[in-house]
């Protein structure tokens, strides 16, 4: 049997790929869009039997991130897997299939005064894509990233078997936490098909307190003052702004408490504006053809000379730098950043990608390869997209 027939036999939506469906220029042969977990598993099994290289596609918000695949036979599209499987409102837990946009979850649970406290810097990111890329936004400071909010994960393995870890309760230490392992694994270990998240109650009130500080050192002092105070900010973000660096602190909570906390932040920032809406740059990726993500301890802000132009910094220790430059200049900038921090190039034009090491140095790489070899011994899942050629 030809691969496309084998796929069509188990999956209700299979077709040859269109020319514009390439993943960073690598054109897949087929696109399969299974209608649910069981179908996805059968599709993966068929792909295994035919030795097909598989890349998962959700809402296509980060498909052009990372490195191009070494090969791609099957694009496994999850958009038909978009059911909210269960919302246990009394338990503050929701389960959804991988293709479900995060916004859809929030719309569903909002009716019960709840929310998934995960910011999506790109509108309509899917559950699977968000987990696979470990994407998070400003509120990571208080609520964490996907690794912290996923409490159960169902995946389809390279061999087509369905495996589950975690569960539907927040407190659970039975077995290894594959949710954390798969968070940020870029589709190289298996296909994420369903996830269970813990939810939080929606806050009654939110305030954004902003001030522009003259430079990084001053911004650092201000951020430190807020972090070491007991106001419990949900997020503290910085961005390059005219006249220096704008620091914006998000405070959320009960209506009776937020104004006092916002006032306190305002005085810690040396007098600041309190608004109900965030500044325009809040929770977005900065503009540019290249996006660099920087990871460093919070105090790195003091010497963040890179925080100019299209750049933001989260007090959780994550920076984003948008660049509009050629390979040499980007390489120079990235190398400078890597002298002191971890810096990963999220996306970049092909000449830039070719000129530098997108992922940068990776500790414990050999251990990662061994784990990869266990999950995907034939290296068929998103081959070459990840660190060290994984």
């Amino acid at each position, binding site marked *: 049997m030809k691969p496309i027939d084998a796929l069509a036999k188990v999956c209700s939506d299979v077709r040859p790929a269109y020319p514009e469906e390439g993943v960073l220029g690598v054109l897949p042969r087929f696109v399969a869009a299974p209608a649910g977990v069981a179908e996805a598993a059968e599709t993966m099994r068929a792909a295994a039997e035919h030795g097909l290289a598989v890349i998962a596609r959700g809402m296509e918000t980060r498909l052009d991130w990372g490195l191009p695949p070494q090969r791609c036979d099957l694009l496994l599209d999850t958009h038909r897997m978009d059911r909210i499987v269960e919302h*246990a409102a*009394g*338990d503050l*837990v929701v389960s959804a299939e991988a293709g479900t946009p995060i916004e859809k979850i929030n719309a569903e649970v909002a009716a019960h005064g709840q929310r998934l406290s995960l910011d999506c810097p790109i509108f309509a990111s899917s559950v699977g894509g968000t987990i696979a890329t470990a994407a998070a936004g400003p509120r990571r400071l208080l609520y*964490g*990233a996907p*690794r*912290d909010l996923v409490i159960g994960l169902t*995946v389809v*393995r390279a061999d087509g*078997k369905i*495996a*589950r*870890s975690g569960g*539907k*309760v*927040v*407190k*659970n*230490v*039975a*077995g*290894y*936490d594959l949710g*954390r*392992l798969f*968070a940020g*694994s870029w589709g190289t*270990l298996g296909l994420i098909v369903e996830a269970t998240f813990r939810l*939080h*109650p929606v806050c*009654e009130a939110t305030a954004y307190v902003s001030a522009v500080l003259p430079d990084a050192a001053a911004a650092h002092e201000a951020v*430190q003052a807020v*972090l070491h*105070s*007991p106001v*419990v900010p949900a997020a503290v973000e910085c961005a390059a702004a005219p006249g220096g660096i704008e620091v914006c602190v998000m405070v959320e*909570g*009960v209506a*009776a*408490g937020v104004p*006092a*906390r916002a006032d306190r932040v305002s005085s810690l920032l040396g007098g600041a504006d309190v608004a109900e809406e965030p500044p325009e740059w809040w929770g977005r990726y900065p503009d540019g053809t290249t996006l660099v993500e920087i990871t460093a*301890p*919070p*105090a790195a802000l003091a010497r963040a000379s890179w925080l100019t132009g299209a750049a933001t910094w989260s007090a959780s*220790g994550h920076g984003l730098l948008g660049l509009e430059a050629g390979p040499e200049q980007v390489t120079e900038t990235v190398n400078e950043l890597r002298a002191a921090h*971890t810096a*990963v190039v999220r996306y970049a034009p092909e000449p830039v990608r070719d000129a530098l090491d997108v992922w*940068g140095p*990776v*500790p*414990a790489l050999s251990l*990662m390869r061994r*784990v*990869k070899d266990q*999950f995907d011994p034939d290296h068929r899942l998103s081959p070459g997209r*990840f*660190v*060290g050629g994984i």
Partner: protein
Amino acid sequence: MGEALTRLAERFTALLGADSVITDPVRLRTYECDGLTSHRATPGVVVLPGTAEQVAAVVRACVAEGVPYVARGSGTGLSGGALPRTDGVLIVTSRMRRILDIDIPNQRAVVEPGVINLDVTRAVRDQGYHFAPDPSSQQVCSVGGNVAENSGGAHCLKYGFTAHHVLACEVVTPDGEIVELTAGGPGYDLLGVFVGAEGTLGITTRITVRLTRLPETVQTLLAAFDSIESGGAAVSAIIGAGVVPAAVEMMDALSIEAAEAAVRCGYPPGAGAVLIVELDGPGSEVAHQFAEVERLCRAAGAFEVRIAAGDAERALIWRGRRSAFAAVGRISPAYLVQDGVIPRTSLPKVLARIDALSAESGVRVANVFHAGDGNLHPLVLFDDAEPGATERAEEVSGAILDLCIEHGGSITGEHGVGVDKSRYMPRMFTDTDLDTMQMVRCGFDPAGLCNPGKVFPTPRLCGEAPGVRKGVHPLVEQGKADLF
């Protein structure tokens, strides 16, 4: 002692010095169990390394001899996660107990694995910080053990577990390499899976923990109810109102009786259940929500609500709860502690079923639990001197775990699977689920020497590709392993 162990003991003495190696059988026996005494095994050799390099050297020596090894911290685990191997080496981290760095601007501290959990908080409290995971054994358990077990505690309802508070670990891998695993770096989140792997993926030798700002205000109340049901209703009402308490704890009449006997905590007499609710955070926030919590408790039928007026009164309220496990020793010669989790909304149903189980079997069950996250700690009481009592208690204990699984919960919320609950894992997970988890283990520890026999009921043979059978493996033939 076998030949391999004898050779290893000599090697360790050369590497670490004689005062860091224990071979005397009487001394070895004191290490035969951790906090779970129902499983015992005298280790072949005990070593007490002082540095990561020594741990790595010990591990390499074990690997060279094909001898299994187990790491142990303070030995307080409640699932036998640090149960030694009679044919193996026990690596004890109790001498690696330096706090290496406290970095307040970056809200983190770097500690060795033997550092006691509470000592981290003690070291930073004056600067307004704490290490948030607070297992009941926090005054004695080690941070390395917390990492292995992904320890939680009463306040993890709001603050999360150890996994959320560890930023990096230096790890001696099962092949004796020293690597640094970090959260948020490029590549797989190996730290995420290492934390909570119960010591089966390596031994951590240095831990960078997140420090959390101490809350401005802490408010604690104790509410007494006639029954567990009305207490449970109060919990549902509180969570339903959108309050995220720092902790919500409940005790039933039997556990109150035990705590009263042990520490004279003075809980309201005649209570069928007491609920402890603690809120913390910014003052204005807490004041508002605390009034709401108090109202909801009364509305659910609390016949007495006590509000702690200060730290001393708060400590008094917590004293009963914190002592509950050990206190049960005063009302029963022996007991089993379970650690099952259920969705919070199933609490009334499951507790009623536990009551029924207890009545049918005649085995007393005291209930102490983290009500906010549905983590039950049923204490199954029995007299180990009475023939058949242990078996009956274990039966009830197992039936309670079945109830948890039936209601979509977990067999363990914070104690870990260890050796105690590995046999229940197949009730919660399919063979494929377990096989998939073990792929991680095979990646880290293909030889299967690092804390073998824990977590998983049956080891996976790492040489085998999943789903592909290549003749019968000798271990399968001997009945020592199964293929999935």
